């Protein structure tokens, strides 16, 4: 065992349950359920994959305790005995690998993933501010039903063979926190008003659950330590809530949490929030209780995890996205193979963006996430015939296909015209707060090195060269380049591409107009790049808002950073003509034209066009010819990595 991680890999204990190490897979909705409310095989595969990777404890996503508490039609119906069959299958599968497994129980209350929902309930009639879905105000009998739901569900969890149960007691969403919150709870009866009254329902749930499961079954609580909203509470109140739960004497652990639906960007923070940012919140939680505390918040690295434990700021390390991205994180860390760990970069595109739309979970770097039976551990078969494979292009698609092919035993050579691997990722990483995206390349490059792929940097290879190489398969992954613009005036010297700006190839004036049709980072990210350089920026886009096709937590925080720094957002608009020192725009709906004056520089973000001349030149002259990634069609990392994985397996 690596002595560096002596804390991380020391056995831990929660209540009566021994846990082989300190790594916890945190609960999260994964959208792998169907609408019959029971555990699916995909579910079992998904969790088993993480258990195989060596995680100590899995806490699985919130199962509903009441029909009105389902945040999506696909939520598991934990109150119904029909869940028991699947529960037993799941728990026994996980126990095979030596991991422990708890289930989180929740009532959605005023929060939902269904748009619009059928009916939401709340302590006081009002909506969660992030969307205006009004609620039914609960009567006393409704409150009793909730307590009963938690009780029955907890018993099902115990009978289902799980090792413990967690209450989404004051977590980032759900009914119980809305009772604790003075903002949402304006009741005049014994469930509202004073702190004691607001804690009444959550504590009744704790007591009733303890009655139902007996003294030795583990019960934990997830507590949001800071709501991160103008109307919400912060960590002082968070500590008070922890103390109140701990005061019952019936709780065995606390799981730290932050944010809420109105500040979901702190609940599942994107790349711009620093790694391990919430360590101080688990430290504060630990000041309020002697019970074990699970830390959370962008912990994706064993050294960071070890330091949090060794500084005494938590007892366990919670991760969700890191284990989605690399289920083998625990094993690799323990074996000292740190550089083989695939770090979650918190891009949000595969996981949270999709599950918030009730789609099955994915990961841009790990095609197996949510598709374990297809691509998961142990599914990769060695090639029957070892081929000589040439990959042209060292961007994500080329690197990924080279990795998969080499793993299967093919002999792979990769040619990259640039003098470093990464392709457009190297450009994207220049956007402020987006540096971590380079980790996609770091991981793949290290794999290729370990797999002894023959890499040729700074080598521009021609069809003629390839024909002499007698390869069995040639994969063209030559990427894409900025699309030309047809807007009149685009040929002006002051009209640049996003690449010109991010690569600092051309000088810029003080007032820059960006026209972005991608609605993604090329627009919003380039704007921030310019703002950081003191430029005044107009950003024009035909979308309903700037950054419309980005995962929203990224947009919210980018707006917080740049809106008060000289940026003007101009949505629903296109550029008609570019002049020497001005730009004519038109509203895409009304056609009304306007002119932005005193413009020094115009940056066009018009999407990309494939670079695949090599494909045409090779057609008919090599045995197997494939064109993948942006060279086939310009897309995102998620799509090209999946494409590369599939091709790598088919070779």
């Amino acid at each position, binding site marked *: 065992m690596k002595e560096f991680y002596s804390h991380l890999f020391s056995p831990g204990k929660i209540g009566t349950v021994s846990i082989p190490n300190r790594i916890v897979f945190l609960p999260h909705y994964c959208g792998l359920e169907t609408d019959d409310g029971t555990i699916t095989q995909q579910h079992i595969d998904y969790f088993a994959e993480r258990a195989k990777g060596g995680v100590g404890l899995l806490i699985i996503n919130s199962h509903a305790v009441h029909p009105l508490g389902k945040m999506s039609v696909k939520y598991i119906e934990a109150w119904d005995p029909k869940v028991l069959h699947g529960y037993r299958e799941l728990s026994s599968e996980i126990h095979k690998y030596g991991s422990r497994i708890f289930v989180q129980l929740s009532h959605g209350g005023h929060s939902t993933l269904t748009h619009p929902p059928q009916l939401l309930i709340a302590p006081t009639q009002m909506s969660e501010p992030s969307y205006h879905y009004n609620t039914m105000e609960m009567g006393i009998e409704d409150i009793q039903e909730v307590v009963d739901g938690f009780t029955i569900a907890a018993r099902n969890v115990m009978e289902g063979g799980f090792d413990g149960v967690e209450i989404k007691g004051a977590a980032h969403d759900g009914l119980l926190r809305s009772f604790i919150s003075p903002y949402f709870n304006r009741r005049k009866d014994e469930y509202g008003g004073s702190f004691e009254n607001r804690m009444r329902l959550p504590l009744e749930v704790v007591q009733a659950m303890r009655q139902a499961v007996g003294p030795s079954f583990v019960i934990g609580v997830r507590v949001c330590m*800071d*709501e*991160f*909203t*103008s109307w*919400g509470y*912060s*960590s*002082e109140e968070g500590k008070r809530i922890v103390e109140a739960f701990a005061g019952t004497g019936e709780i065995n652990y606390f799981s730290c949490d932050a944010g809420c639906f109105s*500040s979901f*960007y*702190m609940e599942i923070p994107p790349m*711009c*929030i*620093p*790694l*391990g*940012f919430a*360590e*101080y919140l688990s*430290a*504060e939680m630990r000041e309020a209780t002697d019970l074990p505390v699970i830390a959370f918040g962008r912990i994706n*690295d064993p*050294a*960071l995890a070890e*330091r949090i434990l060794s*500084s005494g*700021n938590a007892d366990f390390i919670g991760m969700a996205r890191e284990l989605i991205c690399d289920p083998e994180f625990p094993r690799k860390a323990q074996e000292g193979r*740190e*550089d083989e760990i695939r770090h979650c970069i918190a891009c949000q595109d595969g996981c949270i963006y999709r599950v918030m739309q009730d789609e099955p979970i994915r990961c841009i770097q790990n095609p197996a996430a949510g598709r374990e039976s297809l691509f998961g551990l142990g599914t990769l078969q060695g090639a029957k015939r070892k081929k000589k494979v040439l990959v042209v292009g060292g961007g994500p698609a080329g690197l990924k296909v080279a990795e998969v092919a080499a793993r299967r035993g093919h002999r792979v050579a990769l040619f990259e015209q640039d*003098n470093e691997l990464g392709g457009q990722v190297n450009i994207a990483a220049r956007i402020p*707060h987006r540096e971590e995206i380079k980790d996609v390349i770091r991981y793949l490059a290290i794999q290729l090195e370990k797999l002894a792929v023959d890499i040729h940097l700074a080598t521009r290879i021609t069809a003629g060269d390839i024909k002499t190489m007698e390869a069995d398969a040639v994969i063209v992954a030559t990427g894409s380049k900025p699309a030309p613009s047809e807007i009149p005036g685009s040929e002006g010297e002051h009209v640049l591409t996003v690449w010109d700006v991010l690569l*600092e190839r051309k*000088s810029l004036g003080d007032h820059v107009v960006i026209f972005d049709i991608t609605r993604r980072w090329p627009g919003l990210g380039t704007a921030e790049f310019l703002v*950081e*350089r*003191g430029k005044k920026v107009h950003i024009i886009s035909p979308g309903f808002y700037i950054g419309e096709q980005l995962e929203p937590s990224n947009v919210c*925080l980018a707006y*917080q*950073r740049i809106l008060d*720094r000289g940026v003007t957002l101009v949505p629903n608009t296109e550029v008609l003509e570019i002049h020497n020192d001005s730009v004519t725009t038109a509203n895409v709906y009304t056609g009304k034209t306007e002119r932005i004056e005193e413009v020094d520089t115009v940056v066009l973000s018009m999407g990309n066009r494939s670079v695949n001349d090599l494909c045409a030149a090779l057609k008919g002259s090599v045995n197997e010819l494939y064109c993948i990634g942006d060279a086939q069609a310009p897309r995102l990392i998620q799509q090209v990595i999946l494409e590369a994985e599939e091709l790598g397996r088919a070779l």
Partner: protein
Amino acid sequence: MSYRIIVCIKQVPALGEVRIDPDTHNLVRESVPSVLNPFDEFAIEEAVRIRERFGGIVTAITMGPPQAESALKTAVQMGADLGFLLTDRRLAGSDTLITALALSFIINPMEFDLVICGLETTDSSTAQVGPELAEKLNLFHVTYVSRLEFDHDKRHVSVTRETDSGYQVMRSRLPLLVTLVKGINVPREPDTQVSVKDRIKHVSLDDLSISIPNFSADLSPTQVVKIERAKTRNRAQFVIDSRLSARDRIRMIMQGGMEQKSAAVMLDEDIDGMLKKLGDFILQDIGGEWQRR
């Protein structure tokens, strides 16, 4: 293949002798015993080891008063081949930016593969001059380096960089500037028998080709307003004050606990243009600000 290495060093007050002039807020250097900055010993040692292994030449450079020659003497006695002392009254009181610029004027005409700096100095601990110098020389740079390994192709170097939570391994083309952490090697004792005769050269601003009119310490954009003793903290940990507004809590987290430098202006043209802007900036913005205070 051999390497041409430049090591930037500084003479600093001996540990325990650091005093601040209450009026100018500058370091008191008069009648204070001086030594070679301890971090720079690692830089010299590393450079000399590289030369001993692969061949090449090690040139030590410093800027300071004439007595800073003794730091160069130590460097030569540790194995450096040459030493340059940039000494000029007009540079007295330079901040890190002007220091880096001045060093760049000496280094720019030289041919080199690697520039090595200590991580920081023990007198002001800014750790800025290395990275600033790299910018001025238009070089790649890596800070907090704890290991350097040269590739067999001699054109690249693998660099191990310490971070708060572990280390990063990077590969870079040469030329490159690195700043080294303490403990990368064990510096040798200077050999006092070694003669430094003819191996240390004094240079003044007039000897350099400088395109900036009236280049001097007066162009330094940094003003030290106040220096106070730091309060000791129980645990060195990033904590967000729960009494701040939610927006400020989030903003501080995004910025790693720091307040936004809203007045920062990036200068990204050639050196002349930058200096001109810098001058204007000092005169208009900062100058105005100071007068108001």
